[in-house]
């Protein structure tokens, strides 16, 4: 294979992004962003269970497109919840705080994980590989 190949794919995509950002004017600052904040962002603002719930029911959470669907699920005490990974990347279901009640192994595409919730409460979890993915199970 020739060494004269021009790198277009990887850098080309980057250049397209750069060109698009430059052309778009005010969007260029993305590449000039200062370092991200030191504190982790816990983005539960949209999912506060104390707010008027648009709570989904049923007992299934589908993992797809780097998100948990539904992001907030309300179930009765004693319900077995099933998470299924339909995404192209592996994900986990991991409790956000200790004790880690939810601690799934890495779920490949098609794998499932189940947990039966015996006690009422609000159970926040995230994906330990992609920590910006977060979900909540509300057990009532």
């Amino acid at each position, binding site marked *: *294979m*020739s*060494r*004269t*190949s*021009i*790198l*277009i*794919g*990887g*850098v080309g*995509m*980057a*250049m*397209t*992004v*750069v*060109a698009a950002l*430059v052309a778009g004017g005010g969007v260029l600052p993305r*590449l*000039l*962003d*200062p*370092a*991200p*904040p*030191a*504190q*982790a*962002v*816990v*983005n*539960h603002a949209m999912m506060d269970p104390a707010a008027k719930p648009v709570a989904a029911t049923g007992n299934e959470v589908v993992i797809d*497109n*780097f998100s948990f669907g539904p992001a907030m699920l309300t179930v009765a005490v004693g319900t077995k919840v099933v998470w299924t990974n339909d*995404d*192209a*990347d*592996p994900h*986990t279901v991991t409790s*956000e705080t200790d004790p880690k009640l939810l601690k799934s*192994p*890495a779920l*490949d*595409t098609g794998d499932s994980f189940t947990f039966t919730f015996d006690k009422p409460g609000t159970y*926040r979890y*995230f994906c*330990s*590989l*992609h*920590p*910006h*993915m*977060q979900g909540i199970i509300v057990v009532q």
Partner: protein
Amino acid sequence: MRDQIERGMPGTNRRGLLKCMLLGAAGGVLWTVSGGVPRAFQLGGDALAATPPAPGDFSFVQISDTHIGFHGEANPDPNGTLQLALARIAEAPVRPAMMLHTGDVTQLSKPAEFDTAQQLLKTAGLQTHFIPGEHDTLVDDGKPFFDRFGKENGTGGWYSFDQGGVHFVALINVLNLRPGGLGYLGPEQLDWLKKDLKGRSASTPIVVLAHMPLWSVSAAWGWGTDDAAQAISYLKPFGSVTVLNGHIHQVIQKVEGGITFQTAMSTAFPQAAPDTPGANPGPQKVPADRLKSLLGVREIAFVKDKANPMITDERLEA
């Protein structure tokens, strides 16, 4: 053109840079504009910028995101594309001194995947240094990874070493990730880094390895590191710092003073440009005849009398 490949052309007019970017691609020198500073990527064999490593220069390879064990639509044969990548490396006119793997060696941290990856990478016949990606630390806080690849490491898995007059720092930012956050270095590692760099001459070239980008490529897609700013502050006194990242499976670059950040291509599958509407951060399926043009490896060469390295990204196919 060699001088122009050096970092930093202070005071250059932004409009001038854009013109350079638009004309440059056609002229055979590929530029990126980042932070207002132009960077030329040398194209192998091109008359304008033909400065491949010569004997006596110190050159090495960055390979990243091999994802051995992946079997999805985006690439049913990551073993095969890794072998192609290693063949590209073997073609280099000057044999690299070593190889750096910036993580996601495997797909699911399985023993068989680590075995296969080790066997394939050994065929390059190069001393190889590894850092894990988040796919490598799925079991037991990364014990299977560190048992195989981390025997030289201190506590926590981070380490540094010197070679060719360059100081290499290998950071781990894929462990103990916090909910809602990005990559994470942690106070213990940051403290180690501060001590590791202390007292070193500011003219020592530094190369930093970290799997997840050490700058915010996309907060929404989790492509960044929460506490990188502190690490960067320790690196700022040095005149030549090159940060080599992986994770995002494409080349994106940022220049911040004397520090150049470069993410790398994968040898397994491409991913979409950050924040592409309708896309996600995962494997991106492309037409089969395009795949190899989006995969690649990187050669880095510290050329005599130049503090800043020459960086060449090699695709697996034109």
